[in-house]
């Protein structure tokens, strides 16, 4: 990290916290994982998750290290609009609620978002979709692994490589033993810790800051952070919104949750999760915006959230933010490891490599895939290249291009295989070109718009007439 001269916690205290939290999550993961008796239990927690656990796991998964670290960074860089921009990611959860209901109804025995693309649009669209989702999932995993290493180094002085390795190891181990049962169980506890922690830190920062003085300081030193018409911030608002929609609509993390929930639960669970998640980035963004008025220098802007919290609250605050960050990292890394392993097992291993293999072999393969994903993530995190925004947001145009093929394919019969292929390719290429120019903050909007136009035009020229029963792969279904 960039020359922050003093860590707040002693490295030994950091190591002890890491050990206690790590052993705790591994122990709970093994305990809950005993219920995973077969592949469906391991991958989808028996398709019987109730409302409280379902809402908590969706909320905790969406509170990633990026929420705790990037939302304050958005506040620091883009001011009031930046703070609100990050919270627009809650739209992803809100709008996924009706989609999750539909997914559960159309695909009672579905496993992954890849299953939907394969059955709805065929092999070409499925292949493009797998590429998009694997690139995004790896970018998300790497950004979280890097965030873990950075925050441990900043708060406790534990070297980046050690901290990053320890966090990945803990998450791989408990996901390996417990599958989705472990992920959902630990997510429930982690969501409570995260909510309480953010509320406490935000409230204390609010009591330590004099609003009038803070406003005057910002108006003098950082005037654009307070401007209603701060140009880049306003553009970031919609870019982040469509990035969030793309992330949630396409990724198997959310689809596997929809498949795992009891009938009738998904709609309410995702609405509730969005409502619980919404205030968290606002509070975190506010904490980041307060760095200047509090006189806190941010030599590594990625670390502004943990830095402000630990400076304002002292060692106690640093311990609190350590626990909150560890929980937010663990709750997202475990979910992503499990969901991506499911996708690779179901869509690549069972459908491509070994279609005749039995369930026990697939279950064994699934554990090796979790280990492999952890190892690849670790290898990509070691060099500590780029900043967190760069690592994650580069995949934004790709996932935004999948919004319309997913939405239209779930609710309408006419979009064809070709429409989905053209929409994903057109959106990804146009959005990536914009990202590489000076206007990264328009890339997801452009990708979504090009994808929508392509889908509508191709559908108008050559409509399909899809039979919904083809999405049902259960023994009595049409597929």
């Amino acid at each position, binding site marked *: 990290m*960039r*020359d*922050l*001269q*003093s860590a707040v916690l002693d490295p030994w205290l950091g190591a002890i916290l890491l050990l206690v939290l790590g052993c705790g999550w591994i122990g709970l993961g093994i305990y809950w994982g005993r219920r995973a008796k077969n592949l469906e239990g391991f991958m989808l927690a028996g398709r019987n998750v109730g409302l409280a656990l379902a809402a908590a796991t969706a909320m905790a998964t969406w509170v990633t290290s990026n929420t705790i670290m990037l939302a304050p960074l958005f506040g*620091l*860089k*883009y*001011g009031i609009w930046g703070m609100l921009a990050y919270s627009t990611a809650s*739209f992803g959860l809100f*709008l996924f609620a*009706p*989609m999750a*209901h*539909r997914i559960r*109804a*159309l695909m009672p025995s579905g496993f992954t978002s890849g299953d939907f693309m394969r059955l709805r649009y065929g092999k070409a669209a499925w292949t493009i979709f797998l590429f998009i989702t694997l690139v995004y999932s790896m970018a998300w995993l790497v950004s979280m692994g890097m965030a873990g290493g950075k925050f441990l180094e900043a708060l406790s002085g534990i070297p980046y490589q050690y901290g990053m390795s320890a966090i990945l190891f803990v998450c791989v181990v408990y996901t390996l033993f417990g599958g989705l049962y472990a992920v959902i169980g630990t997510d429930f506890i982690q969501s409570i810790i995260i909510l309480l922690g953010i509320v406490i830190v935000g409230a204390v920062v609010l009591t330590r800051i004099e609003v009038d003085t803070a406003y005057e300081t*910002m108006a003098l*030193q*950082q*005037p*654009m*952070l*307070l401007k209603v*018409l*701060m*140009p*880049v911030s*306003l*553009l970031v*608002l*919609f*870019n982040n*919104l*469509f990035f969030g*929609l793309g992330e949630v609509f396409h990724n198997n993390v959310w689809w596997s949750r929809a498949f795992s929930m009891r009938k009738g639960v998904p709609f309410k669970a995702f609405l509730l999760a969005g409502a619980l998640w919404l205030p968290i980035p606002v509070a975190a963004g506010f904490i980041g915006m307060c760095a*200047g008025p509090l006189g806190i*220098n*941010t*030599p*590594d*802007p990625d670390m502004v959230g943990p830095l402000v919290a630990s400076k304002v609250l002292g060692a106690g605050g640093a311990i609190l933010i350590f626990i909150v960050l560890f929980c937010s990292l663990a709750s997202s890394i475990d979910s992503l490891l499990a969901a991506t392993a499911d996708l690779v097992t179901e869509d690549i291993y069972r459908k491509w490599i070994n279609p005749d293999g039995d369930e026990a072999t697939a279950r064994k393969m699934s554990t090796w895939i979790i280990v492999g994903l952890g190892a690849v993530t670790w290898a990509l995190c070691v060099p500590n290249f780029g900043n967190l925004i760069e690592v994650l947001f580069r995949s934004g145009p790709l996932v935004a291009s999948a*919004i319309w093929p997913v*939405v239209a394919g*779930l*609710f*309408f*019969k*006419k979009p064809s295989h070709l429409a989905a292929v053209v929409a994903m390719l057109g959106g990804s290429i146009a959005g990536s070109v914009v990202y590489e120019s*000076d*206007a990264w*903050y*328009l890339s997801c*909007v452009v990708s*979504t*718009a090009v994808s*929508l136009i392509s889908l509508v035009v191709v559908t108008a020229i050559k409509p399909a007439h899809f*039979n*919904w*029963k083809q999405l049902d792969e259960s023994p009595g279904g049409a597929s």
Partner: protein
Amino acid sequence: MWENETALRANEGHVLLSWEPTGKDSEYEIQYTGPGGESEIRYRGPDLAYFATGLAEGKHAYRVRESGGPWSRPVEVTVNYPPISHVLIGLVSGALLLGITMGTIAAGYRLCRTEGESGVAR
């Protein structure tokens, strides 16, 4: 002393400035000069980088020194935001796109609810 180049562009209104250390326990000062010519010290402390954010449009200059030592050459940061007309076009397009997305999901969900779950929306 600076690790940055002497002329920087910051079209998003923020820039990270960094400098080389001069000694083990050294303290540093950053002096800022705004577009109107006003100067002030913006940072005093041991860090080896300074993040300037929320900068108004125009030219901004920064100098660094070890406390009590001579000032470095200035780094000039130029901020040029996109024109507000471009921003408004972006905002209107984004809002329109969001409206279409929300409307489509709401309409599709409603159709499926009213006509049964087995896929009747066309």
